[in-house]
């Protein structure tokens, strides 16, 4: 059914740690309800914070929210609305760092939660890399399935923009 070559993207890594069903839907461009207020808020925060840094930089098929140099070290930042999904955000950023490394660029990452005035450093290490590789394989396994995983009620459903799609 899917003819285009499927790439694991940062967005899919992000969803993978929240809900595998979202991975499948997103891979087919079945995007969530754009009227959901959380989506708007996330977009607003992404667009209106860190105005002094370089923003929305694309490398190949990844897109980095914020880019800066600190003491000769390249720092890529990922802006998020809330740290509720910190694990997802952490792995997404680690995935970017690995993609960059594979293209010969060494960088460190920083998760940015402007609303909470919180930052979290992300640095690649062997264990993290192994985890990303495992996740990438599993993401491909999910998206090559014919049907999405059945909806399962989890804590994230409460604010999820797919909730009405899944539970209608």
């Amino acid at each position, binding site marked *: 059914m*899917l003819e285009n070559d499927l790439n694991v993207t940062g967005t899919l890594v992000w969803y993978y740690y929240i809900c595998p069903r979202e991975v499948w839907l997103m891979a*087919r461009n*079945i995007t969530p309800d754009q009227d959901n207020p959380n989506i708007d808020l996330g977009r607003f925060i992404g667009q209106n914070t860190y105005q002094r840094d370089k923003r929305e930089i694309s490398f190949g098929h990844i897109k980095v929210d914020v880019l800066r140099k600190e003491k000769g070290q390249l720092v890529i930042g990922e802006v998020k609305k809330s740290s509720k999904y910190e694990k997802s955000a952490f792995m997404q950023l680690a995935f970017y760092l690995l993609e960059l490394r594979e293209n010969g660029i060494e960088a460190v990452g920083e998760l940015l939660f402007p609303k909470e005035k919180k930052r979290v450093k992300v640095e690649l290490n062997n264990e993290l890399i192994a985890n990303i590789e495992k996740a990438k394989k599993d993401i491909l396994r999910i998206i090559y399935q014919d*049907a999405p995983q059945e909806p399962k009620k989890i804590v994230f459903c409460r604010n999820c923009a797919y909730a*009405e799609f899944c539970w209608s």
Partner: protein
Amino acid sequence: MKKSLYVFSEGELKRKDNTLVFETQAGKRYLPVEDTKEIMAFGEVSFNKSLLEFISQKEILIHYFNHFGYYMGTFYPREHLNSGYMILKQAEHYQHPEKRLLIARAFVKGAYRNIRQVLKYYHNRGRELGELISLIENLGQGIEDCQEISQLMALEGHIREHYYHGFDIIINNRDFRFQERTRRPPKNFLNVLISFGNSIIYSMMLSEVYKTHLDPRIGFLHATNFRRFTLNLDVAEIFKPIIIDRLIFSLLDKNMITKDDFEHQVEGLLLKEKGKRVFVEELDRKLETTINIKSLGRNVSYRRLFRLELYKLEKHLMGEKVYEPFVASW
């Protein structure tokens, strides 16, 4: 929830910085663009390309209606949600006769069940509708046996015809006799109201389709000809009895619309502006009322039900869950 904007007066709709303004002889009215779901243009509205650019960017649809309140068309901004996967699935279910029939049948079943529900409601309130209900129930049995879309359409038409005759028993108002269903032009007041309400619900459903990954040109019950929107007509069938017809009954029952709200013109019967306003105000109020959806564990408005119905259809197309139309439970 974002609002529908109804424009009845004559004037110019403009972009003003990052908002909308409607300028009439009486003055300017600023309209919050972020809070606007769609624009329903009934009056003589003029606008220019920069307005169209602006509302395209904001993903707002403009539905326009003629002087008599009939749906004329929609300014439909470029598709913003694209899923090749979903379009292929939709086309697949359209092209495969059995798959198409299954969905078309579900729409007719939904319409039938909601019609029956409306009749039962009034029957329980003392209207003599028992005979009509059993007649319609008999016809409803035949839905499963239909093997052709044309048979389904005919059966639905048949059910609706009987149903409309129940209107006289429900409404019981000499000024608003049903007689027969007439369109373009409707021949009596009641037909004007039905056409007006249906026009609005079709356009609202189109706005909801725009917010999904479905293609409004590929309908299952109504024939697709790729030039006009049909999917919205299909899904709206389910909601017409419980939204529009019930609204009409209540407007007439409360004398909120009377024969004085109409005028005869050379080309046909016209619902005057005041009547149209009352109609849409009450419709909006109805669409904002919420009901609890068990599976979802939330309250959703009637208007939101339109979208949920499309989501259910998407899941059917994906092969995930067989589509079951919404049926009112009261």
